[in-house]
């Protein structure tokens, strides 16, 4: 699997994504500088976490206009899978690849902790190694992870099975108490209609090793390797 990781000024999970992909797939991703205009031949594009352009103006807003994003959008529209994690999810939304918005967490604070998630859709290249409705644990680390969209969009996401991950309790119940940041419908991750783009606030690349607190994230990269082999 040939993966390309976009590096924006202020990206800070680019190396973590690189290490995780190497550890799961054995392949070394290409790091692509945001000012390049063309991606190399690639099977997967990763928009990594961090604070691209300092999150100034609005999270992801400036990064969405980086030169490389034209080619990212073009390839994504042509079907190349895009994994957009945390700040990358914000960039993907600003670039119009995914609907909705990510706003300040309901408690107005940065939140860093492992959270339980229910895998709502395993029919995607990112999640097919999980069991249907499997409860997994992944860390979140963000200030602006509160997913919002208008009622029509939420209905469309639901009807089309595009809600891929939702915050839940350890038993898998999707409750208000299990919602860390006020996200609509406890949404932690969504896909585009074609299921080729996944935006998610939790960090699968940080949970690829029991020593780090869990290895539930491995299946995201394992799924991709399986789907793209």
């Amino acid at each position, binding site marked *: 699997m040939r993966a390309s990781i976009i590096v924006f*000024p*202020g990206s*800070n*999970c680019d*190396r*973590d994504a690189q*290490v*995780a992909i190497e550890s799961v797939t054995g392949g070394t991703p290409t790091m692509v500088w945001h000012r390049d205009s063309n991606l190399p031949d690639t099977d997967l594009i990763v928009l990594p*976490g*961090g*604070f691209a*352009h*300092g*999150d*100034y103006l609005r999270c992801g807003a400036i990064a969405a206009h980086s030169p490389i994003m034209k080619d990212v959008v073009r390839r994504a529209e042509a079907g190349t899978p895009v994994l957009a994690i945390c700040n990358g999810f914000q960039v993907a939304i600003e670039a119009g690849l995914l609907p909705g918005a990510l706003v300040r967490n309901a408690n107005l*604070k*940065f*939140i*860093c*902790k492992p959270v339980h998630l229910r895998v709502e859709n395993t029919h995607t290249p990112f999640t097919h190694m999980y069991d249907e409705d499997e409860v997994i644990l992944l*860390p979140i*680390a963000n*200030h602006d992870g509160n997913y919002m969209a208008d009622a029509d969009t939420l209905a469309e996401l639901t009807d089309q099975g595009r809600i891929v991950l939702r915050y839940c309790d350890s038993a898998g119940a999707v409750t208000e108490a299990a919602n860390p940041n006020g996200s609509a419908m406890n949404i932690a991750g969504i896909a585009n209609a074609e299921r080729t783009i996944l935006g998610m606030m939790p*960090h699968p*690349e*940080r949970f*690829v*090793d029991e*020593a*780090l*607190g869990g290895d539930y994230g491995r299946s995201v990269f394992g799924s991709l390797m399986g789907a793209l082999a």
Partner: protein
Amino acid sequence: MDLSNRPLAEIASEHGLSDQEFDLVITLLGREPNLTELGIFSVMWSEHCSYKSSKRWLKTLPTEAPWVICGPGENAGIVDIGDGQAAVFKMESHNHPSFIEPYQGAATGVGGILRDVFTMGARPVANMNALRFGAADHPRTRHLLAGVVAGIGGYGNCIGVPTVGGETNFHPAYNGNILVNAMTVGIADTDKIFYSAASGLGYPVVYVGSKTGRDGIHGATMASAEFDDDSEEKRPTVQVGDPFTEKLLLEACLELMATDAIVGIQDMGAAGLTCSTVEMADKGGVGVELNLDQVPTRETGMSAYEVMLSESQERMLMVLHPGKEALAQSIFEKWELDFAIVGQLTETERLVLKMDGATVADIPIRPLVDAAPDYDRPYNQVAAPAAMAPDDSAPPNDIADALATLMATPDQADKSWIWTQYDYSVMADTIQPPGGDAAVVRVHGTGKALAISTDCTPRYCLADPHQGAAQAVAECWRNLTAVGARPLAITDCLNFGNPERPEIMGQIVGSIQGMGEACRALDFPVVSGNVSLYNETNGKAILPTPAIGGVGLLADAAKMVKIGLAEAGYAVLLIGVTTGHLGQSLYLREVLGREDGPPPPVDLEIERRNGDFVRGLAESGRLQACHDLSDGGLIVGLAEMSLAGGVGVEIQAAPDDLPLHAWLFAEDQARYLVAVRVDAASDIMAEAATADVAATQIATTGGEDLTLRGAFTISLERLRQAHECWLPDLMAAPREETKATQ
């Protein structure tokens, strides 16, 4: 400040220079200084930059060991961690600015200490902190706590360096002067370490990073004076941080450092361009000429005085090998940072500043540095408090209630409200997040790991600075040991009141002596640090707070030990001797309302023997869990182990030669609790006896309570409630509630 047409001596005094110091300036220059020169002398001779009240005592600290690569005097200390790698670390205070403007004060404290580490060629891998606030019900405490935590998180999270741990205390003595001590640990290759000495006549002096603005002028001077009721007016002296720019600066510097372009490099921290230029030139024994017209500025019309004294953040000064300017420039331009050749090295050994074609300052560098005052301030040795027997303190009405009280007391309560606002898992190497005895991060790409802990028990230091400071070092060493690491070295942040008062100077002297004794006995040298004095408001000083930041090495990260009791059916052994020492204990203060008696004595020989024994057990893989004992004693330690693992514990037997409460709550030093397999317990105790280490089986794991038959039972649920609710409840309480207690 209106500086025109006023006697120079008066302006000097406003800059914090004493009459004698001002006379010395005139003698050194052979003439009266101009305003720019006066400003330069005043910051270089400020307490913050010159250590003029502490340096003769700091010199007594041990700074060497076979594994020390670089001790104090550089931007950070460096120790060898094997395989051609080094750990680079330092702790620094940002107390005064954080009290005035908590978010920016704390944020720029983090930014400054990060730069100290990456300026030496290391990639920062962990941030820590040591925080002290006023009483929880003081009207400013919540505002300051919320702002400081947001500032630390705001900077560290953005730059992408995990904040992996720290400590937080509350005490009314900090009502008017909070302490924000930030520590950074980085990793470098031993053959790619960069120092600050400038050399090479004619070599270019290069400025990189952010532009220079009018912010932070007089920051170092402000940090060298007491507060009064008008301290709010000092807000303009606080710098404003930009972690995004720092991230770019970090990556650009590391990219340039991978080449062979740099001769010397130093970050611009306190006293900005002045301090970095003077220190680099002094260390290299050269002169330097700067053309201030070339310094990138944020606004027009800045005077030489302002350019030299600005403490704008995210700036670096470097000397390059000639011919490497274009390479360096291309890297900094890639990262969209300013790059300017602002001068060159000269053979004059003088600092010469030019602006608009005129010479605006001309100062001999050696005297500016070497003639900095070095005061032998009078001090009163603090008398050791009278001894206190275990039965000098009343037992509690109910042990379970007393334990619940301690678990919910400000110093002891769970601090996850704080550390969940820090990104502690970025870089994906944090294997012991906040909540353990020491934080542990893997050395990326290796099987090794670094353990890090910050420690100080200020109430001990107030009662007996010598014992208290020795205890801080010993506890740090113990915390590193408890996770299985070999302690290597410390950095320190020495926070005290006004050194011109003999009783405060007595605290400083006693603390440094106690630290030195402990560092020598434990082979735990001091490799970097910082001193913060004048932490007083209206004549009231803080508790003496010599904060210790220690770093240890785990040769095999897989051997790391955690504190949580993970399974039922394990034996819990107490390592070390319990004499029932309750002087200055948390029990005494929080349950009986007394702050008296001596702190627990530190026996460094026993400390070392017990610690080496415990580390041996960890290395042999026989510890299911391990926890050092400190605040609250044995019973609080057990409660923390139970809560961390979710498994209860039954104490089998308490000794009959001590009052029960003294056994449970005593804060005797050099003690650990370890959980081991039941069938291994007797062998381990036999080995302990051979090693002359006290080890007793005191409990067995299991159930959902913490219990001692016939004495007390408390459920983990109650303990958890008590432990975890205090801080969130405090921070969520309506404003009026805390106002009422003003």
